[in-house]
């Protein structure tokens, strides 16, 4: 984990900050220098809604090396209250408790650890609300 990358992505990961286009009103996440709809660079930071409902989910069993200590884990697509759809881990519930359509809220968790001596990457996940 490179310190500059963690530092650069901090507002997206910690605060779920994306962008809003001032020309076409489109909102998107993650952050970008340009609107993903009209390509305008007239964009500003936009804080995503922190609650929503779970649309789809699956359980991940085969993971990247940095995620192996967390496997198996659940990942889902959440439609936030501001209609944006984001992908994230679903925590604080077991597979048999997860239901499509259930209400969720953002929680602050460890995303990955760089071994015992490296940096810890933090960010949002979703938990039942």
């Amino acid at each position: 984990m490179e310190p500059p990358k963690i530092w650069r992505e901090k507002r997206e990961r910690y605060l779920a900050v994306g962008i809003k286009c001032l020309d076409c009103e489109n909102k998107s996440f993650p952050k970008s220098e340009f609107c993903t709809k009209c390509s305008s660079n007239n964009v500003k930071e936009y804080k995503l809604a922190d609650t929503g409902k779970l649309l789809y989910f699956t359980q991940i069993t085969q993971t990247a090396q940095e995620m192996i200590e967390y496997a198996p884990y659940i990942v889902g697509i959440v439609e936030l209250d501001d209609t944006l759809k984001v992908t994230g881990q679903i925590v604080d519930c077991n597979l048999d408790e997860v239901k499509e359509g259930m209400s969720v809220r953002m929680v602050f968790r460890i995303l990955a650890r760089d071994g015992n001596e490296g940096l810890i990457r933090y960010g949002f996940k979703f938990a039942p609300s």
Partner: protein
Amino acid sequence: MSKVGIVSYGSYIPRYRIAIEEIAKIWNEDADELISQLQVVSKTVPGLDEDVATMAVESARNAVNRWGGNSNDIGAIYVGSESRPYAVKPTATIVAAALDAEKTLTAADLEFACKAATAGMQMCIGLVKSDMIDYGLAIGSDSSQARPRDPLEYTAGAGSAAFLIGEKNIIAELEGTYSVTTDTPDFWRREGAVYPTHGQRFTGQPAYFQHTIDASKGLMEKLGSEPSDYHHVTFHQPNTKFPLSVARMLGFSNEQVEKSLICKEIGNTYSAASILGLAHILNHSKPGERIFMTSYGSGAGSDAFSFMVTDEIEKIQSYPYSTNYYLNRKEMIDYGTYARYKGVIR
């Protein structure tokens, strides 16, 4: 002289619990006797993706959301803990960023065993009273370590509480605070050591009880108050027996202390223990009630506080993510899962 006090509060308790019975089964010890001695039936266990920083952020966000103000008005953040994720890299910086409170503020991590958070509250009170800041956030967060089979393993839990201190819209006005500090070697962890060591029974009389009693009596003497003047009292709760005993020694009744006693279900949350009790009390308090709190931190010291609940409390009590919410949300796990979650096995 302007008033100062608690403006808001937030709690966080992990979902996972392990029963004392489950730990006792592994070590072939008498669970009934342990439960009877400690008056604790289970303790909290942080999930694989939780640590002191994540719990501190959750309790801090609950305090800020309950308040409803602008996080940029927070001028100081202090995180009290003895189990921080980084030896060097302040947890308070992570909390500040996660609250969107960067960057014009002062921040630090504090260590004084189980009372670092109340030291942080005193620091915030001082900064607010001296007009250096408008609001200060004091957090206690711990995911405490315990060597497998050590008596500590039965109670060492995890949790966090956060208190926003300020002068406007105070929900509990500070009437006074009083501290005692001595060099008492009852519990310690050397640099690089994985688990703490303790002085067995020495942690009781000359440590927990003496300091808690001295600070409590000192404050009541200073204020001219008596135990009967208070509706609620919270002490450090390493187990349920100690706060009940010290309450009795000081002249408080079981009824005055019982609202704070959440240790029975969640174990000892170290830096968060006395203040999680305070947060739970505030959820059930009425305007005009007086609350007494004395923390205890090994090493050793105690901070005592006297608060008067104001009319403002009723405006923020309905916030949904209260201590009760977290107490009711639980999943029991077995010892193997506990060992994995605590990193004993990987």
